[in-house]
């Protein structure tokens, strides 16, 4: 294992500090946004110092139930989000993608996974004590864990989440979670604190409810939430599930949005186009996309696969089962799970209720699961007269799409919407 010559966690911590310093001094920045960056700083500082503090680190993939780790006082390292953050905060992650390529990872593979493998191989991320992962939600994720185990020489545990969601399948998955808890107890020497897990689940239930309320506020015209603010909602769910900080953040955000609605104020000076965002925009273009959104008056008002939670509640009295329930409620399962009529209906419902003018599908070329849905979603949205712009891109790999190309397509699309 190479020594960390290029510690990505330290880079993220440094970038978060700089951003925080800038926005703390800015009276126009949302208080909730300041809280969000403090949370990011906290997450990555804790991860950076974990080894020094003798803490047990579990690397985990996206949608893995991190509630379990937090209830056991294990330090989680969300691998895909960390790759994103590298791209978002340091502007590029070519070095870790190149390291992934040196491992033999083909460019067709989802870049966050390529980057993750490269980051571990080059020592840019700390070596985890264990790797825990699942088939939530894609096959890249399902295989990445084994690769990380191999690269880092650490033990690991894979949770099998059945594709369908009958009672029997949920019972099976609860068994998987219990086996994983036993694995973690064995490797970390820490016992699961079920009371703590119940508290986390109870807060997670509240977190989901608050996200739903925030989304309700976003229905207002003009919408009060920033054009790409939904990434904050996404990130706190990934990094802080059921944590007090998430509740505080969401309650603050909700109060801020309520105030803006009361004052009939929009997030951007002149709202012209209400957009639905399908999949994740390229992280390295976020500043550009924010600027373009403000210039063009385009704002994302709903994201059916990222912020629009499925129906249901989490029962804190049965915490393991609640963690399983959440695995079937997460918005992304609409895209990655069985794509029935209900998923397509949910998109149409979102388009109608959030008064969407157009949808932007950031088609991550390395994500076969999502790209396979482009036509289905386009056809479904055509039924409610919502045009869809598809942008072939990658969440972190800058070689796939340039800023100019995205600008050109976005401007064409806005012209189409304006001309209707």
């Amino acid at each position, binding site marked *: 294992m190479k020594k960390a010559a290029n510690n990505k966690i330290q880079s993220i911590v440094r970038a978060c500090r700089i951003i925080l310093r800038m926005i703390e001094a800015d009276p126009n920045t949302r208080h909730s946004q300041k809280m969000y960056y403090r949370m990011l700083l906290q997450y990555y500082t804790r991860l950076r110092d974990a080894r020094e503090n003798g803490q047990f680190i579990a690397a985990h993939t996206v949608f893995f139930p991190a509630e379990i780790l937090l209830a056991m006082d294990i330090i989680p390292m969300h691998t895909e989000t960390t790759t994103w953050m590298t791209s978002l905060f340091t502007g590029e992650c070519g070095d870790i993608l190149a390291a992934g390529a040196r491992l033999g990872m083909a460019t067709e593979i989802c870049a966050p996974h390529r980057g993750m493998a490269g980051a571990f191989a080059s020592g840019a991320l700390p070596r985890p004590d264990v790797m825990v992962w699942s088939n939530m939600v894609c096959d890249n994720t399902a295989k990445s864990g084994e690769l990380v185990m191999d690269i880092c020489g650490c033990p690991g545990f894979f949770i099998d989440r059945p594709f369908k969601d009958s009672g029997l399948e949920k019972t099976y998955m609860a068994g998987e979670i219990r086996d994983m808890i036993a694995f973690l107890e064995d490797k970390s020497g820490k016992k699961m604190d079920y009371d703590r897990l119940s508290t986390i689940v109870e807060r997670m239930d509240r977190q989901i409810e608050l996200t739903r309320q925030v989304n309700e506020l976003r229905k207002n015209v003009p919408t009060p939430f920033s054009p790409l603010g939904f990434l904050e909602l996404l990130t706190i769910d990934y990094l802080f599930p059921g944590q007090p900080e998430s509740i505080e953040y969401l309650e603050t955000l909700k109060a801020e949005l309520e105030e803006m609605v009361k004052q009939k104020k929009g997030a951007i000076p002149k709202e012209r186009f209400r957009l639905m965002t399908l999949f994740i925009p390229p992280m390295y273009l976020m500043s550009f996309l924010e600027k373009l959104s403000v210039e063009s008056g385009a704002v994302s008002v709903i994201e059916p696969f990222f912020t629009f939670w499925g129906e249901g509640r989490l029962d804190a009295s049965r915490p393991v089962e609640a963690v399983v329930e959440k695995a079937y409620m997460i918005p992304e399962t609409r895209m990655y799970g069985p794509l029935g009529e209900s998923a397509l209906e949910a998109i149409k419902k979102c388009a109608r209720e959030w008064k969407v003018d157009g949808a932007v599908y950031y088609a991550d070329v390395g994500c076969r699961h999502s790209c396979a849905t482009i036509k289905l979603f*386009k056809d479904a949205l*055509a039924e409610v007269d919502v*045009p*869809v712009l598809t942008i*072939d891109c990658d969440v972190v790999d800058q070689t796939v799409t340039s800023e100019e190309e995205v600008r050109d397509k976005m401007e*064409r699309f806005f*012209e*189409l919407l304006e*001309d*209707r």
Partner: protein
Amino acid sequence: MLSIGIDIGSLTTKTVVLNNGRFLASVVSETLDEAEISAQVAMTKALERIDADEDPLRFVVTTGAGAKGVSFSDRSKAITTCLARGIAYCVPEARAVIDIGAESSTVVKTNERGKVLDWANHDKCAAGTGIFLQQMAKLMKLSFEEMSELSETASKGADITGTCAVFAESEVISHVHRVPPTPMPEIILGIYLSVSSRIKTMCKRIGANEKIALSGGVALHKGLVRTLEKEIGQPLFVPDDPVCVAALGAAVLAGEEIQKETAQ
């Protein structure tokens, strides 16, 4: 007031001049290093063709590569919007237009008012574009006319990929050097089919299923037009001047802008 549309393409710059919706002139000139100069030269040539007593006032809409940087442009518009307006002007019954330019191919679905309903384009590779066909013609040492004539005699097309222009070139070379070599007409038809299947997919993707027109320089390539028609399963509308459709649309949009300003 004259409404002038300028479409700056990668090889040629097209200009169309209208006056109150009446066609006055169109010009195709070579695209030069700078968009500004290309547009200026093209517009000057077009204005030379109209009567001196036409209105000296003008409203200019530019589109294409570098259109935004043209200093004398009053508005720049997306090529998709221009294609839709242009085809509605010259082929009113069309509800979609396939534009195969030198370096990109685009399909635009339109409504009866020439508004864009949806579009799909391919700009990642030269496969399916005019440059690709030019490259193939050069490789086989044939003119476009000769290619068209030969393709008519083919009973089937050779397998040629539509994904990558470089791979396609290797495949053509491989067909030529095969023992026995693949007959030239089959290779040409194979090339046409590879372009056509790519275009057909784009049409399907946006639901451009009927009343389709064809624009761009490739519309003059008769053999390809025939193949494309067979692939799509319907005749294509080819306007009298397919090269200038986007410039015509830009001129129509210039006219709309004049009307808006007059109304204010």
